[in-house]
């Protein structure tokens, strides 16, 4: 499998995405904002369609569209303080509406590869972009780990501890937008949020600390991507689907193992 150059690129890119998506997803899930990934991915799709129409590299337009949307969500959240999910619904509707119009305007045949992900189409340009943005995301997480932890655990407490929650929330929104946009090449927009959420859901069942939860999320993310890519290659299936279903299989395995363990403990 690794004989093929496109598979080498896919694997490197997949491992990066397998690390980045669950890392960002971990903070989102714990802040009860898991649906943001879904919302932004629909906007990223409209960005990709716009890129195809205007002959601009679609990942770039996807990034720009999703960053604008992420900042829009933050802004709208304040307007609907007690109905925060409304801001997501508004942006998601905008994304879907825009995407359907842009796709119907023509010259967007490649849009399917952004919907479900594609191995063969990953270019060196994609790879460099993912590695570059991946480094930015990881450096940020390392530098702001404590502040991000504090804001995730207790936003009000973080504010009283002198952490600028406004700055960090906006910056983190941009990171989420970047993650969604760069992931759509390999996982596809319809399944990005699953890769952000499923490894985290699995890790929450077994994590005994914040740090261990993050490490488990990353590990499950990478395993899902590698196994998913292998399945996609040998059975000629869309990589987004195989990656996400592998992540789901790991989740089910952990749930079943946990139940069996509980039953044995009760029996003893």
């Amino acid at each position: 499998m690794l004989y093929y150059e496109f598979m080498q690129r896919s694997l490197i890119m997949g491992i990066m995405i397998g690390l980045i998506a669950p890392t960002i997803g971990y903070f989102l899930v714990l802040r009860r904002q898991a649906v943001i990934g879904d919302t932004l991915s629909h906007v990223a799709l409209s960005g990709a369609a716009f890129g195809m129409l205007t002959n601009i590299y679609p990942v770039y337009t996807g990034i720009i569209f999703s960053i604008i949307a992420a900042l829009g969500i933050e802004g709208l959240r304040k307007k609907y303080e007690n109905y925060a999910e409304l801001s997501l619904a508004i942006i998601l509707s905008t994304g879907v509406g825009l995407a359907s119009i842009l796709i119907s305007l023509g010259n967007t045949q490649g849009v399917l590869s952004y919907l479900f992900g594609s191995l063969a189409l990953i270019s060196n340009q994609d790879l460099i972009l993912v590695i570059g943005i991946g480094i930015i995301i990881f450096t940020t997480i390392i530098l702001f780990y404590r502040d991000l932890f504090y804001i995730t655990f207790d936003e009000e407490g973080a504010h009283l501890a002198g952490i600028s929650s406004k700055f960090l929330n906006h910056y983190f929104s941009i990171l989420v937008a970047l993650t969604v946009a760069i992931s759509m090449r390999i996982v596809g927009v319809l399944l990005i949020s699953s890769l952000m959420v499923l490894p985290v859901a699995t890790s929450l069942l077994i994590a005994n600390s914040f740090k261990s939860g993050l490490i488990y999320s990353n590990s499950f993310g990478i395993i899902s991507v590698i196994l998913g890519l292998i399945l996609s290659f040998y059975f000629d299936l869309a990589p987004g689907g195989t990656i996400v279903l592998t992540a789901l299989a790991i989740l089910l395995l952990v749930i079943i193992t946990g139940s069996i363990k509980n039953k044995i403990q009760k029996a003893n």
Partner: protein
Amino acid sequence: MKEKVVIVENLSFSYGKNKVLDDINLYIEEGDFVGIIGPNGSAKSTLIRLILGLLKPDRGTIKLFNRPIDEFKDFHKIGYIPQYARDFNPMFPATVEEVIGANIQSMKKSFKRMGKEEKDKIDQVLKIVEIEDLKKQKIGNLSGGQKQRVFIARALVNNPRILFMDEPLVGVDLESQNRFYKLMDRLNKEHNITLVMISHDIGVIYDKVNRIICMSKGKAYGHDLNKCQPIDIVREIYGENMNLLFHDH
């Protein structure tokens, strides 16, 4: 003369068109143990959140340690135990050590792993709140009272000079209440921490605090307990027809 650590002047605040605080003036002195009492909806929590800068007033000024709240930066001097401390998200995967550690580290600008000094500090505050054995436990696995102690320890880790607590004793049994007040007494007298606590139970709090702030119908009245009787306070808040029923548990 004692330093005034909180000064509130001509403070007004509304939720939409509903004015909940109207021209409030009060102060809290260093070393005070202040109880804030009043019926539901009398804006007790709102007052604390305004003092902490979590809400912006419509009018008036608030000073913490002689600095206007907008310019206040010495966040390590204040601790806040919110109402939600007791029912904190049980699925959240953080240990007691991580929760307390985040508060020490957030005081530092640069990225640094937790060292011996920080770990000793955590052990020290866990000992003060008597939950040393829970350090490695996930916060979600703890009881409501234990979670509350974790939040108190989190505040104590920065040696605060004033601690604000929003109804810390709701749903707490009598024995735990006694333990809580013993802890408060030590923090107030041995560690010289000024305490501000919202409570509904005037009968109990009257014996523990040295000042009471009564809130009713948008107004706040401060009382030095050397100079007034609890029945005066109850009538001030709930009306002239009210009486106290003294009883034993």
